[in-house]
């Protein structure tokens, strides 16, 4: 049991994935000698060498395509796309080739590709380096989407992603890189599609990921002092989504609040709320609220970016509204 940062947990997850399976290789821009633009691959190249840890040109389309080609020939590529925003540059490879390859060939190929990318706002990188890009991929069946929020999940979900036989998009949140937490020497496995109940409570079910999970927890603790007990659920993977855990919680709380970084349109929060309503309408005693960002790009200036992200206060207010409804 040691205390490490979220960043270090990712690095250990990558290192252990490479140790566990010789078919795993790591590649991307500046991931080898430089140890990654975010230092999430620090020391990996030194440990595993040129054959298994490779720097690439600035060619995201080539990176994704190479991962696909290597995967269908028996390898387990772990590719880095530096900022998740750059997934737009290789979007075709991800949504038209990677996601559909197995299906279009009637199951002749499997694509055990993991693409890890730095996600999200709050760090002053501006509109083209701050998007919560997970929402771009929700309407493309065939992709698994992982959004770790803690040190242990950062590690365990990296392991699960690389071991998974389907394409997995692993989004690490830039705002969490420096967060510290305990990482056991033998981290328990986490399956993709299994949520974590962060906090139990009988009044309101709150679902949140990454940065917002931590803000929601802070809000929940405020509310506890007001006598409102929040059940906080972190789905940890958006695809597949652990609907059973959310439903079980709603059967007790009958109130749902989803907190997400990013605007409402085409988002995972809206997808979750819609799903709950298809079978669970009767469960709800209050409107299932979505706390999210404004319908704007991510602004640069500190106060503007801060206002774009849901704050603990906004979350707490929404919980109050939901509880009182």
């Amino acid at each position: 049991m040691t205390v490490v940062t979220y960043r270090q947990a990712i690095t250990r997850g990558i290192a252990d994935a490479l140790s566990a399976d010789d078919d795993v290789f790591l590649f991307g821009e500046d991931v080898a000698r430089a140890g990654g633009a975010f230092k999430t691959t620090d020391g990996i190249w030194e440990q595993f060498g040129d054959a298994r840890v490779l720097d690439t040109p600035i060619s995201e389309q080539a990176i994704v395509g190479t991962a696909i080609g290597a995967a269908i020939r028996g390898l387990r590529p772990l590719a880095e796309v530096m900022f998740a925003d750059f997934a737009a540059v290789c979007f075709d490879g991800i949504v038209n080739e990677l996601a559909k390859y197995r299906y279009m060939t009637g199951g002749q190929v499997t694509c055990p590709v993991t693409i890890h990318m730095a996600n999200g706002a709050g760090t002053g990188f501006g509109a083209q380096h701050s998007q919560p890009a997970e929402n771009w991929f929700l309407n493309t069946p065939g992709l698994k989407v992982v959004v770790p929020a803690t040190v242990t999940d950062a590690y365990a979900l990296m392991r699960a992603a690389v071991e998974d036989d389907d394409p997995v998009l692993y989004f690490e949140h830039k705002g969490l890189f420096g967060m510290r937490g305990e990482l056991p020497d033998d981290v328990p496995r986490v399956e993709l599609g299994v949520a974590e109940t962060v906090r139990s409570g009988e009044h309101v079910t709150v679902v949140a990921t990454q940065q917002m999970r931590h803000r929601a927890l802070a809000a929940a603790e405020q509310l506890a002092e007001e006598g409102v007990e929040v059940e906080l659920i972190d789905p940890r993977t958006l695809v597949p989504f652990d609907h059973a855990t959310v439903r079980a919680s709603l059967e007790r709380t009958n109130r749902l609040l989803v907190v997400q970084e990013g605007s409402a349109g085409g988002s995972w929060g809206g997808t979750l709320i819609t799903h709950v309503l298809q079978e669970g309408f009767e469960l709800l005693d209050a409107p299932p609220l979505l706390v999210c960002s404004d319908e704007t790009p991510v602004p640069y200036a500190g106060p503007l970016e801060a206002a774009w992200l849901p704050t603990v206060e906004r979350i707490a207010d929404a919980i109050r509204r939901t509880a009182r409804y």
Partner: protein
Amino acid sequence: MTSETTSPALDQDVQLEMLRAMHEIRFFEDACHRLFASGAVRGTTHLCQGQEAVNVGALHALRADDQMTCTYRGHGAVLAKGVALDRSFGEILGKADGLCGGKGGSMHLTDVARGALGSFAIVGGHLPVSVGVAFAARYRGTDEISVCFFGDGSTNIGAFHESLNLASVWRLPVLFVCENNLYGEYSPLHTTTPIEVLADRAAAYGMPGVRIDGNDVLEVHATVTAAAARARAGEGPTLIEAMTYRQKGHSRADPAKYRPDGELEAWLARDPIVLHERALAADGVAQEQLDAIRAAAERAVEEALERAQSWSEPAVETRLEHVWA
């Protein structure tokens, strides 16, 4: 690197086999033309009559364990890789026993067991995949080669650039075979491309590039044999520009009115099958034998089509399979 037409004459059995293979493709494509023209099949198809020598010459110069990717205009490449006629028809007809169980269609013929790794419908989409296939071969210590067929118009898309660059930096065993049939859809090459000889683009990647007569199956065979030897020796990729001609329109809907007068006729006079038959006759092969090969191919295609037409359609539930591993 210069083209290798001066290489030792090829064993006549191989030459006759290549004739058979070209006939088979020609009859297959003619049958597809009828199927779509008659409305018996929905959607669209992209035929390769006139280009058979490129696929056949290249793939007969390679080994069964070499790996091939191609485009929506890939029937010829897939059949030249030894894929069954009936299951290919079956896929185009959307049958349960088609290569992809009816999930892929005319643009996605795939038979991984034969090293026909996939037909891709997004221009440029498979070039980076072919790089990954070559990477896997080297990573796994095999001396397999990755061969990638694509068109002249595809050399203007970004993925072409990124793929050739990366393949060259990593000195990977890929053969990039550009089937220059003078048109991208309805646009003659010169309207979209500021240079004449596409093989010259290889220089931008420090890669050998060679332009050859794609209607001369022996020249294609000799060129690919040399490039393959280079690739297997670890000397990296080659760009081969095979000059050829698309005798039919771009796709089902295209009557190809845009061709200058006489162009088609001139190319029909250089039909790759006719040229090869002539060469074989000059080598003393009896006309009867040539005719027998042609007749056998025609029969094989007819019988394969009849079989495929007799197959059942996929059960609707099967549409839910093969999204995930």
